[in-house]
């Protein structure tokens, strides 16, 4: 590229200004990326939800438990392939800050409904035979350095504060790229034997797999009608709708992120736009000379835009590198408060596109000004 030297020479003309502008870009990109990963973390449940799965909860709310007898009734509805149930255990490991989701699962049907969670057969069989058995997600096991055979004490916050001990019989993985590998599963039978009588023979919610996703509306309606006017009316929705409403419990995250993101975007646009405008104003006569010796209006626009894009590129890359380095630490620090924060390749790419878009947009007005500038007027500014 013949103009490379001219572009870089102009950029390095005021080094402090360049560093500050690139720095602004980098900081803004760290913030942008952080917002993107937080949004992604909240939406992960929605994104990975199975299209052929429905969730049945008590119409009053998730905290109201339903009779375990509902399982067979739901399974009898045409279009339902398999039914399983979960309970929220709500415990912590060693310390309050070591919070992670623990589900009380129905070992007989869980794998039929969640085929994406992979557990080696020998580990699964040991788990089924072991009343105090547990299975942990690979990421969770990695976080606490657990290995199969470890004894894991979990202090429940819901059932009188008792410490329950489990044997880690297996580790599950998932074949979905953003799959949740942070869960801890324990057996419903063991749970049912040890909880207060008011909790016994209940399920927190039911998950059912459909023969076909096309049956979702009909089956959901059939289930809710079946339990209408009972002591535990139900609310059935798709897994993604359930995940979305679950995420909304934390507030309107989407709106919050959009608002902060917009502020970041416009601030960055103004900072870079101002920098480019000053940079162009400072060298009007030089641009006039370039035009005099034959640089076309488009070449001048190209030069200004290129400078702006180069700032954006380097600021963006620096910001993304910083985010890439910082997000695992932030994620670890926020464990329990937020789902795991994962910076994926598409997000990095999106960040770079965002940076280049802001760079292009901020260089556009000063560039057009330089493009339209009359040579004679520019030369008079010597």
């Amino acid at each position, binding site marked *: 590229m013949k*103009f490379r030297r001219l572009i870089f020479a102009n950029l390095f003309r005021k080094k402090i200004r360049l560093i500050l502008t690139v720095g602004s870009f980098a900081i803004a990109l760290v913030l942008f990326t952080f917002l993107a990963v937080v949004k992604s973390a909240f939406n992960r449940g929605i994104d990975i939800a199975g299209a052929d799965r429905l969730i049945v909860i008590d119409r009053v709310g998730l905290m109201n438990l339903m009779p375990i007898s509902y399982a067979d009734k739901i399974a009898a509805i045409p279009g339902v392939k398999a039914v399983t149930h979960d309970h929220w255990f709500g415990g912590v490991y060693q310390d309050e800050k070591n919070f992670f989701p623990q589900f009380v699962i129905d070992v007989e049907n869980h794998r039929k409904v969640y085929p994406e969670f992979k557990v080696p057969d020998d580990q699964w069989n040991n788990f089924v035979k072991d009343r105090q058995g547990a299975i942990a997600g690979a990421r969770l096991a990695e976080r606490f350095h657990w290995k199969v055979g470890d004894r894991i004490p979990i202090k429940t916050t819901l059932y009188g504060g008792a410490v329950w001990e489990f044997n880690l019989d297996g580790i599950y993985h998932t074949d979905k790229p953003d799959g949740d590998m942070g869960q801890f599963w324990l057996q419903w039978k063991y749970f049912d034997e040890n909880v207060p009588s008011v909790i016994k023979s209940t399920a927190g919610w039911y998950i059912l797999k459909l023969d076909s996703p096309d049956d979702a509306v009909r089956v959901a309606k059939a289930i809710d009608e079946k339990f209408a006017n009972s002591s535990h009316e139900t609310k059935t929705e798709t897994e993604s709708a359930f995940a979305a409403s679950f995420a909304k419990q934390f507030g309107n995250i989407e709106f919050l992120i959009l608002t902060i993101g917009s502020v970041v975007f416009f601030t960055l646009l103004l900072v870079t736009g101002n920098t480019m405008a000053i940079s162009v104003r400072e060298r009007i006569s030089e641009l006039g*000379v370039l035009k005099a*010796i*034959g*640089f076309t209006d488009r*070449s001048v626009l190209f030069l200004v835009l290129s400078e702006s894009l180069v700032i954006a590129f380097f600021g963006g890359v620096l910001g993304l590198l910083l985010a890439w380095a910082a997000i695992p630490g932030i994620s670890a620090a926020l464990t329990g408060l937020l789902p795991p924060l994962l910076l994926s390749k598409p997000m990095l790419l999106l960040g770079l596109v965002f940076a280049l878009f802001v760079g292009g947009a901020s260089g556009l007005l000063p560039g057009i000004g330089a493009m339209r500038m009359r040579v004679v007027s520019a030369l008079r500014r*010597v």
Partner: protein
Amino acid sequence: MVRVDGNGGSQSLIRVRGLNKTYSRGGEKIQVLQGLNLDVDKGDFVAFMGPSGSGKTTLLNLLGGLDVPSAGSITVAGDEITHMSGSKLTQWRARHVGFIFQMYNLIPVLTAYQNVELPLLLTKLSGSERRKHVETALAVVGLADRMHHYPRQLSGGQEQRVTIARAIVSDPTFLLCDEPTGDLDRKSADEIMALIEELVAKYGKTVLMVTHDPVVAARAHTTLHLEKGVLVEGKASSRQSVLAGGAA
């Protein structure tokens, strides 16, 4: 031969006919050039003199395609530039005009070499071809050993030499000099004028120069005075003559 009577032949390198330039300032129309005629042949060295505001720089801007006249025509090497579109005029300037400014107007963040190379970036020349041209131009102006210096590391005279090298590197049809020695001491001014004379004598360049300095103007073959928007005869050197006001 330089003529200002409008009777020059079609073989003139630069042919100006009935050139008018009017500016509006605060609602008032100011006519700077009024029906100006000029014929300049290849290899001529013409100095334009005149009081401030007489339209010297305006004339130079019009001849260089930097501005458009209110009326009249300018033809250079057969191309009538007065009706060219903006982008075509820019391309024409790149091919035909070398500019030498009073304040040098070098890009301060580029070395002498990179400044001289600028006009060649617009051509299809390869990197090695560009290097050859730039080194030749810098050698012609006597700055081959300073090519990697930045403008701030050069004296005023040397900066103006770099400007001259930039003006000649693409071998333009003619050179336009706007007060080329206006910012220099006498010694440097003499050196610059000697260089411009050399470009005319040795390389056959056509040079049109605006100056306030009669000593500098005396170095040109022909001096024309701009008075009330028209050119009038100044001095004719021994090699050229000025035919003015129908004195053919």
